[in-house]
């Protein structure tokens, strides 16, 4: 098992630079997810690790060896592709064995390896089938089998679940997680789906515009987004953003917006900064609806979406959308156009209005 290290990895096409110096260290056995909107450079980064794209600048090290000019086949990495890239003219067994055959592994070893891998993935009955005769989930498994069978140092996944329907995706997600637990192999996984990132990753790398926005454990990123981009990208529904002015209140600093105000944490950075404009990040999950008159912040409710045990209250706050996640069990959500919520001051995340960066001093442990 081996680590992967990216030092200032750059990708440029001609004069156009699309990945601007990525630094990342993946420790042996770790499951790292690169997540970001499409076009953020995450796939390009993965493909540079795989050797499918040339690295324009910077150093890639796998297991202590510089890999920049090493051919993909000699990097000892395996990749699961979005469209699986299963060879349609070969059956499942031959697809899994392809890499071993190319590498001239002994026949009995190949047979044993295929048997073992197909056992792990529950493909034993389908070994004779062609990819065209398999379901989406089975194809996905074959694609993983093809990667596992080579026992590579590093697994790379390029949006492997995006071609599956929602239900299957959830199922395969769990399966990948289980597989990683069992094999413990270093894995780098690219997705644009923040739910996949949250559920699979040991650490998440959020990328945007060819840069890393933040690296951290899923909960760390959820609780302590470093900037408004990460805050808006992770979590579903995303964090509500409210522009507000810092004012001094009786019990501490408050944030004022549209004639209402909210108590916020007493951050060192805000002391003596009355009148500063900030962006408040309010997670839909962290607010509590209240029926107490005059308490909390009032919003105008447009629509209540009931999901079962909880409901999403779509509202507007100062003409901007504001979503609240609320429990439904044991209470009525009948609202006549208005709702009020409260939120503990330490759960209101405060960002600099210009740079979007979170102000210092706000760290939450799980």
């Amino acid at each position: 098992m081996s680590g992967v290290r990216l030092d200032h990895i750059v990708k440029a096409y001609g004069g156009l630079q699309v990945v601007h110096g990525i630094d990342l260290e993946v420790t042996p056995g770790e499951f790292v997810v690169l997540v970001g909107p499409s076009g953020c450079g995450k796939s390009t980064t993965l493909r540079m690790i795989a050797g499918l794209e040339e690295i324009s600048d910077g150093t890639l090290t796998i297991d202590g060896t510089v890999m920049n000019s090493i051919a993909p086949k000699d990097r000892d990495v395996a990749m699961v592709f979005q469209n699986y890239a299963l060879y349609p003219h070969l059956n499942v067994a031959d697809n899994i064995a392809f890499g071993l055959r190319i590498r001239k592994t002994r026949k009995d070893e190949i047979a044993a390896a295929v048997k073992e891998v197909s056992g792990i993935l529950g493909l034993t009955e389908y070994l004779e089938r062609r990819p065209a005769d398999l379901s989406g989930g089975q194809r996905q498994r074959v694609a993983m089998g093809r990667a596992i069978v080579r026992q590579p140092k590093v697994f790379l996944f390029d949006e492997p679940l995006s071609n599956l329907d929602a239900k299957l995706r959830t199922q395969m997600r769990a399966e990948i997680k289980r597989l990683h637990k069992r094999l413990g192999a270093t894995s780098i996984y690219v997705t644009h789906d923040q739910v996949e990132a949250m559920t699979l990753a040991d650490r998440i790398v959020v990328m945007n515009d060819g840069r890393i926005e933040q690296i951290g454990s899923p909960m760390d990123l959820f609780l302590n987004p470093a900037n408004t981009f990460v805050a808006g990208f992770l979590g579903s529904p995303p964090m509500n953003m409210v522009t507000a002015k810092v004012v001094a209140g009786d019990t501490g600093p408050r944030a004022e917006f549209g004639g209402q105000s909210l108590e916020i944490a007493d951050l060192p950075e805000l002391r003596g900064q009355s009148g500063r404009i900030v962006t408040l990040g309010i997670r839909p999950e962290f607010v509590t609806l209240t029926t107490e008159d005059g308490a909390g912040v009032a919003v105008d409710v447009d629509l209540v979406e009931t999901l079962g045990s909880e409901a999403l209250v779509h509202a507007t706050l100062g003409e901007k959308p504001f979503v609240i996640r609320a429990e439904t069990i044991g209470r009525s959500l009948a609202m006549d156009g208005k709702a009020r919520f409260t939120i503990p001051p330490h759960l209101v995340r405060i960002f600099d209005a210009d740079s979007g960066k979170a102000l210092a001093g706000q760290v939450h442990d799980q």
Partner: protein
Amino acid sequence: MTDIPEQTGVPAEPAQRAPGYAKPTRAQAVVAHFKREWQLYAMLLPMVIWLLVFLYKPMYGLQIAFKDYSIFRGIQGSPWVGFEHFETLFSNDQFIRALRNTVIISFYTLLFGFPVPILLALMFNEILHKMFKKTAQTIVYLPHFISSVIIAGIVITAFSPSAGIVNTMLGWFGVEPIYFLTKPEWFRPIFIGTGIWQEAGFQSIVYLAAIAGVSPTLYESAVVDGASRWQMMWKITIPSILPTIIIMLIIRIGNIMEVSFEMVILLYQPATYETADVVNTFIYRQGIQGGQYDLAAAAGLFNAVVAFVLVIGANSISKRYSRTSLW
């Protein structure tokens, strides 16, 4: 699949160097690329060599059109004569005649031959009986795959004055046998008719494919609206394949210098040169048979340049028209 090279790029800026690693120079990057991908260039090589040796080298040899070429002096050693051969050509009645015949034969081929495959495709489209359709298609595509020598053989046999079926049939109506292939006035109808007979079926494939691309829901809604088959053909099918028709027409106009001269060589004889001799048969007789390589090369160059201009023109027009180029 993968992220397409991002649209969000910003101009390259030097990244901070990782210790012990220098950004590769351009030359190093090129060397690394060839080291990685040399097999790709090895695959390309035989084809490129072939193109250079068999198609581009003759283009170099075209210079004999401006030289007093002799085999003994070779292409390099022969003296330049400027446009002398072109002047000779354009004062040569035979060449002018060949040029005229080429254009006339192409024009009539276009006029009579162009609509036939469209009609055939429209008619095939109206056939419901699958077996009948398949069989008829199989038959009408067949002549395309028969060699011109055989087609010529069939024509010669069928139009033979004593034994041929054409004269036999004319005999039933009391017409005296006609020596078709020695009559200049009969050459073009026979040549063009043979061409249509041989190619129309095959050419209909393009239009059938275009028709197959028309959404069935258009027809279904027309049926619900009470349209007849005839109306549907005129209101749906033909307008839908009109772009294809226009593109094919442009291509054909672009190829107007191309008369299937193999067939001309097989069917013409001195008695019919008057209407049958085209530029390429002229080149063949003057150059290959007569050994006047420089003059024939000049005729060929003229032909190729006109064809090139027409083809490029046709391609750019069709590009503008359809946003799809032909190549």
